[in-house]
């Protein structure tokens, strides 16, 4: 081979503590090195030109640049050598800045280390092979998982951009958490009034295919070519017939069914339409409460339904859709306050959660917007809000801040005063987090205009005294214990990952943090991408966030999909695993361990069964290579022989 070596000074960044001339001189002695030089700024345009000239003049077929981290400039130099006619993978970098000059003080030792690193890079590049990406066709449908505000926004943006959208929502209606809210901060505008039209848009958009009351069963494939199995859960009502007239709800004799939309604060009927603005506005039966299912007889709804839509025999159905990209917008759940024993573990009727309170405030809620406390339906006069219930609490496994509680507490306290002018609200808080536009002003208004009393300290215990709830907390500003006798206590439960988030992540092959929130590619620069190509994130599934942020991410994810789909063909990274069929012994270990299901068995023309890499699915982690006992499957660019050559180059120096 004919290898060229280029040692970069990086101004004084490298040359200050590494004798670059010596490194370049030493590199001349390495096998296959026919050209070696040093340069002030190799990454600069003239620096790159010098490499290209050397490639042509010296007929180089391999290049090593010793400079900064490959994470910085590997792509730069790959393009450089490619422009000079060399395959971009016939290039290696030795990181002598971040790993040498910047971390070592002894110039002699640094120089020695740099020489070693260059020797190792040369040894490796000797074994590099030209690699070529493959192109494949893209299916331009997009799957959006989750029909909350983030998912809806993403779906609408994609659909408006001309893409076919499959929107899957596990609840009977889209709308998500936002549909349950009364008002939104900091503008106090009616939540459903702004969301409702959007929901209608989604429901009516010709490019959006809606699957509600459905869940993702299985996902296979890769960017551009995913296949998704969707489970349509049985509703026991034929939605092609149901008109949403609501007659069944009126006549249903089972009126004590749990109402998830109202967070259990009031019951509903066994057959129900979740809420008036639901999209689609269709009825479904909850078999846990329906007499037909429990007792085997009733059938009132079937008799009453004017369009004969009731079907007690209905089964779940699996449908398959093909898409090219996936936007995950599965949202969040709320912390289960019954885990907190010192707050009564959900046993006190007058200690409720903030989302329940939201339903009490809501004009379409069970109390028609009148605040009545659950134990005796009386109007509470003293209301205590407790912040950080299931947030910032390591002992409960939720050390993080839930982001939006401070704001909704302020909103609820303001609304409380609006509803009950002679009421007094108190808020136990630890820190007020109001960094959004107009947020701080909003919280100030709660205190200044609405007289909400903020007490800085956590609540230790809530218990009953007569018909009052005693809230014992501290006022850390005073340095004392405080006690309040409240009529109603509202616990601001924090956001946790949606139930099933981890399972879905595994189906999608994306990663999640210890709490079950999905991890983005880069926390700053790639906030809506995941490390799995073609899978994007929007909204609170990535971490607690408020409505504007969720909507923003929905649009961002949609724009990522639109730009991905702007090409008809995609290129795959060729740094993937490759099977030497002669060596493969069909032991199946690679198939078993591949995190992407990218390896399958195939029969060679000789009749031998061997492993085979699905090139577009392989992500190049190399786990298979480390697993393969005969070394038959090799991750190109990181083969056993290449790594062994690096080891050898160091130890046999």
């Amino acid at each position, binding site marked *: 081979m004919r290898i060229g070596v280029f040692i970069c000074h990086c101004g004084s960044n490298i040359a200050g503590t590494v004798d670059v001339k010596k490194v370049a001189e030493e590199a001349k002695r390495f096998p296959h090195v026919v050209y070696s030089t040093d340069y002030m700024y190799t990454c600069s345009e003239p620096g790159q030109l010098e490499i290209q000239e050397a490639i042509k003049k010296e007929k180089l077929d391999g290049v090593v640049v010793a400079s900064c981290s490959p994470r910085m400039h590997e792509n730069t130099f790959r393009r450089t050598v490619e422009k000079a006619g060399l395959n971009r993978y016939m290039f290696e970098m030795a990181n002598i800045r971040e790993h040498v000059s910047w971390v070592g003080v002894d110039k002699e030792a640094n120089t020695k280390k740099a020489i070693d690193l260059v020797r190792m890079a040369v040894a490796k590049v000797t074994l590099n092979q030209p690699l070529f990406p493959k192109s494949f066709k893209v299916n331009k449908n997009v799957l959006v998982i989750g029909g909350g505000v983030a998912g809806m926004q993403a779906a609408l943006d994609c659909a408006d951009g001309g893409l076919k959208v499959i929107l899957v929502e596990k609840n009977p209606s889209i709308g998500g958490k936002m549909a349950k809210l009364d008002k939104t901060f900091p503008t106090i505008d009616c939540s459903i009034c702004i969301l409702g039209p959007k929901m209608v848009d989604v429901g009516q958009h010709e490019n959006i295919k809606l699957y509600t009351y459905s869940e993702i069963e299985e996902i296979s494939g890769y960017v551009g070519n995913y296949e998704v199995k969707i489970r349509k859960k049985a509703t026991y009502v034929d939605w092609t017939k149901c008109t949403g007239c609501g007659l069944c709800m009126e006549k249903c004799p089972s009126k004590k069914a749990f109402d998830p939309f109202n967070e259990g604060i009031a019951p509903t009927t066994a057959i129900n339409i979740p809420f008036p603005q639901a999209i689609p506005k269709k009825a479904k039966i909850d078999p846990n409460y329906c007499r037909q299912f429990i007792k085997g007889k009733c059938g009132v709804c079937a008799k009453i339904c004017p369009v004969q839509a009731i079907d007690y025999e209905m089964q779940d159905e699996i449908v398959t859709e093909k898409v090219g990209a996936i936007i995950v917008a599965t949202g969040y759940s709320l912390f289960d306050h019954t885990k907190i024993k010192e707050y009564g573990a959900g046993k006190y009727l007058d200690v409720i959660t903030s989302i329940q309170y939201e339903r009490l405030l809501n004009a379409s809620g069970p109390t028609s917007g009148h605040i009545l406390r659950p134990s005796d339906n009386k109007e509470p006069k003293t209301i205590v809000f407790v912040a950080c219930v299931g947030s910032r609490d390591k002992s409960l496994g939720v050390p993080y801040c839930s982001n939006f509680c401070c704001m909704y507490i302020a909103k609820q306290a303001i609304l409380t005063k609006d509803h009950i002018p002679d009421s007094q609200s108190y808020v136990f808080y630890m820190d007020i987090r109001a960094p959004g536009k107009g947020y701080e002003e909003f919280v100030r208004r709660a205190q200044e205009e609405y007289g909400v009393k903020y007490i800085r300290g956590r609540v230790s215990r809530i218990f009953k005294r007569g018909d009052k709830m005693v809230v014992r907390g501290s006022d850390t500003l005073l340095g004392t214990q405080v006690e309040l006798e409240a009529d109603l206590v509202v616990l601001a439960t924090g956001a946790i990952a949606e139930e099933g988030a981890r399972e879905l992540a595994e189906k999608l092959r994306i990663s999640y943090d210890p709490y079950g929130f999905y991890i983005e590619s880069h926390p700053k620069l790639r906030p809506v991408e995941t490390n799995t190509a073609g899978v994007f994130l929007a909204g609170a599934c990535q971490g607690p966030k408020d409505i504007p942020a969720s909507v923003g991410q929905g649009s961002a994810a949609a724009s990522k999909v639109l730009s991905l789909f702007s090409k008809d063909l995609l290129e795959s990274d060729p740094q993937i695993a490759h099977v030497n069929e002669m*060596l493969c*012994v069909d032991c*199946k270990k690679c198939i078993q*361990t591949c995190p992407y299901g990218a390896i399958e068995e195939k029969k060679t023309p000789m009749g031998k069964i061997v492993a085979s890499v699905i090139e577009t699915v392989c992500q190049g982690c190399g786990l298979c290579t480390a697993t393969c*006992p005969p*070394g038959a499957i090799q991750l190109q660019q990181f083969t056993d*022989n290449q790594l062994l050559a690096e080891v050898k180059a160091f130890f046999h120096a």
Partner: protein
Amino acid sequence: MTDREEKISELIKNELNNVDFFIAYGRGYDPIHVKPLFVYEEKDLDDLVMNIFCVHNNASYLKTVKDKKVGIVVKGCDSRAVVQLIQEGLINRDNLRIIGIPCTGVISIKKLKEKMDISRVTEAKVESDSVIIKTSDEEKRFEKDDLLADKCLWCQYPTPVIYDHLVGETIEPSRPKELEYKIVEEMEKEDLNVRFEYWNKELSRCIRCYACRNVCPMCVCQDQCVMESRNPHWISLKSNITEKVMIQLIHAIHLAGRCVSCGECERVCPMDIPIFKIKQKMNQIVEELFDYKAGIDLEATPPLYTFQVEEAKIKEREW
């Protein structure tokens, strides 16, 4: 022929229609050397034996006859290899007919060799707990336990864990499990440098014949093994100590969580290198870390080809 041999013979006869051949045990060149017997037709059964000298693990052959329908006679320890092979999808249960032999132990020829000159054995028999060996010039009687292979002294699977036919009654394990890793524990009483030198000395005898690997029922790479393929270039063909150590480390690592403790690697070593110790250490680690023993459960996954998100016994932030 003993009753047991008659019974096995009968079973094989009946099964021969269902398989391409049967692997049993046959007479070798003297009474204490038995050989694996490949039965293609009835007359091959004339040589059949089943006794305390049937040391071989017949499952070792399964990897080489993947596409055939095979019958096999297995002892308890051998059967674990069958289970492990099926578990890993390396052989197909449907292609197998298994005759299980409950076993109370097999003789270690090496141990016997230490106790007497075995070059002229004319007769060998077992009487209750004794083994009697006759040669042209003498007759010796041994306590059976003194001659049994080490693995038999802590055997927990005297009855095969998988079979289609069982010849004889199920035997409950009666050997002390604590002895399983005795050889390992004894080694670990020594200092690191003593161990280092011990292996240098023992492994220096290695002649790179690869018998340990070829006999290993779980070594499925065989002809493609990196110990000799030179691609990937893990080792050279030199017969120096580094490469000899490397060979054993490759074997141990490739077998981690898969080794069924049949001890064949050590039995076949022509240079009498105690390599089973190495495998047992690996088995002990795997058992400690993952509560797993290979070749017991058809549904299990070898621990190094799976994982737990939270590992109960691996400390995460030690380093």
